[in-house]
């Protein structure tokens, strides 16, 4: 224990000597990543504004009722800000869909409105490209389904009215009654301001998108901060490990002392990064709903809870450094491992955006466990199961580091 303590203190001293450099590098890296993320987000937001879904309307659009409906969609309905309805013939629509100028087109059959009036089962054809799995396609599927429901339900209402009116002897002019019903319906349709209410359930465990991304970005930074510590871990001579072993300090003790010192460095980095993060929050007006009212207390408490996550990621980085003995490979390995784990685990896009097979894989990844742990911490609950998984991963990484060190000193 005496040897362990001495070695741990020596490691802390090493870290103390290089800490200003490491912190400056961390600050620089974090700043660059933040700027990059900010510019990407800004570019995305402006391109989204310019982007409108284009839908072609082909076939029999000459009917006055239908023409009025289309005009209402083009000029009056709020959907006009997101969707352009363009009237064209079927051939033109087909060509434009193939050229990617349209997201989809709708073919209205000949005499559609009259057929509806007669109560015939007529269908509007909605055609889209097979591989079009984007937002436009999802939006149109929803729209078609809503319109179909609206037509079916209003048709039922009309036929119901025609049946009820004679039974009740209420009115003899069914046509006038139907017209009034139509007008009432159109009036209700056009008078709506907000037809729907959006409730954002969140992307992970009902966490708000901002909070989720805060966790994700923090994990991404933690994964990449390992790069800045390369000067501490690469180009290491195993002679010291050999001498320590000869003097009775086992490999497990050496690894534990070095790892603990590294963890202290990571934790110090994490807490010192509060200042720039707080400044960024203040400048951008960003607010995390979970910390409403007490943002400083919220972030500090969150960071304390995130210490086990820092412990796992430090263990992972420590293990990677144990595998490598030169600077370039060390930095490359840390960067590639960090960025790929961050991407797969949902630091950049929420995991729910990925196919199920990837989601299953993420569940097994240590960074996936860290994200799950972080999101639970953000919600304020104690993630007991996730804590167990974190401890498991930490022990695995330290065990692997011990095994690699054993092999290295015997070479």
């Amino acid at each position, binding site marked *: 224990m005496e040897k362990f303590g*001495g*070695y741990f203190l*020596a490691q802390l*001293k*090493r870290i103390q*000597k*290089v800490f200003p450099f490491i912190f400056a590098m961390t600050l620089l890296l974090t700043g660059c990543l933040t700027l990059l993320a900010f510019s990407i987000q800004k570019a995305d937001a402006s391109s989204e504004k310019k982007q409108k879904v284009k839908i072609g309307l082909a076939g029999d659009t000459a009917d006055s009722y239908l023409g009025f409906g289309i005009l209402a969609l083009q000029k009056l309905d709020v959907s006009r800000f997101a969707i352009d309805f363009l009237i064209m013939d079927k051939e033109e629509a087909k060509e434009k869909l193939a050229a990617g100028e349209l997201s989809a087109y709708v073919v209205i059959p000949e005499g559609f409105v009259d057929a509806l009036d007669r109560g015939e089962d007529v269908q509007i054809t909605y055609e889209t490209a097979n591989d079009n799995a984007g937002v436009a396609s999802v939006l149109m599927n929803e729209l078609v389904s809503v319109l179909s429901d609206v037509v079916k339900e209003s048709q039922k209402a009309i036929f119901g009215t025609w049946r009820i009116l004679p039974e009740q002897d209420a009115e003899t002019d069914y046509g006038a009654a139907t017209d009034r019903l139509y007008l009432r319906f159109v009036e209700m349709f056009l008078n709506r301001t907000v037809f729907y209410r959006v409730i954002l359930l969140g992307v992970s465990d009902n966490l708000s998108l901002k909070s989720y991304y805060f966790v994700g970005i923090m994990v991404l930074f933690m994964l990449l901060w390992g790069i800045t510590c390369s000067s*501490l871990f690469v*180009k290491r*001579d*195993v*002679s*010291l*490990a*050999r*001498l*320590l*072993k*000869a*003097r*009775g300090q086992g490999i497990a003790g050496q690894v534990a002392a070095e790892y603990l010192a590294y963890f202290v460095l990571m934790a110090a980095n994490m807490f010192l990064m509060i200042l720039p993060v707080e400044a960024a929050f203040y400048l951008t007006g960003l607010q995390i709903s979970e910390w409403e009212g007490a943002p400083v207390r919220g972030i500090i408490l969150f960071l304390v809870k995130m210490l086990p996550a820092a412990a796992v990621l430090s263990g992972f980085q420590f293990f990677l450094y144990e595998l490598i003995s030169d600077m370039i490979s060390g930095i490359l390995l840390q960067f590639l491992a960090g960025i790929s784990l961050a991407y797969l685990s949902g630091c950049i896009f929420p995991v729910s955006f990925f196919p199920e097979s990837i989601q299953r894989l993420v569940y097994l990844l240590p960074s996936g466990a860290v994200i799950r742990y972080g999101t639970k911490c953000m919600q304020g609950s104690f993630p007991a199961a996730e804590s167990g998984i974190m401890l498991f991963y930490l022990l695995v990484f330290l065990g692997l580091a011990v095994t690699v060190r054993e092999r290295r*000193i*015997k070479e």
Partner: protein
Amino acid sequence: MIMMEISGISKKFKKKTVLKDINLTVHEGSCVGILGGNGSGKSTLLSILAGVQKADNGSFLWEGADLFCNEKLRAQILGYVPQGNPLMEELTAWDNLRLWYEKKELQSQLETGVLAMLGISDFIKVPVRKMSGGMKKRLSIGCAVANHPRLLLLDEPSAALDFICKERIGNYLKDFKEQGGTILLATHDVQELALCDVWYILKDGVLVPYVYDGDVHHLVGKL
């Protein structure tokens, strides 16, 4: 007086036998030179004796006590200078030595003891990364002998050092021997060979006695 007895040590790495039934007897205050080409197994033998690696077979007795079975005793008796430098690059000589010495003892050793003899006081505040190869090697020896060992295992201590530094290390080893210390030295260096009382050649895993009379050509032919 026989201090150290090595018998039947052998070591295999996968299918390659590096050491075959190594037997060696060493007297108190003597310096044993282990000679051999690169990859002959000199470093493996020393690291097995130092406890860094385990032998497949054999025993290592010190005054009758088996050091393979008594880790504590081995750590007390043995000083080991591995081939590289067991130092922390970011720290000064003082900080590195503090890992092995108590503060008071360190000060006294720097003034009059072994560290003074190695000339470490001259660069005590210099960070390791700014030291020359000779400084680093002297500091490494200073770290290795902090426990006042009775047996010193040195793995090519003078490799790539200048004459002044070799001289300084040589003087220290002579003094160590005179005070009754026993040395096991793996080396290629002619100057170091002259320090030894007994020589052995390690070739194809087998340790055979050799009489070195200063004829380097003859020695090279045997390696």
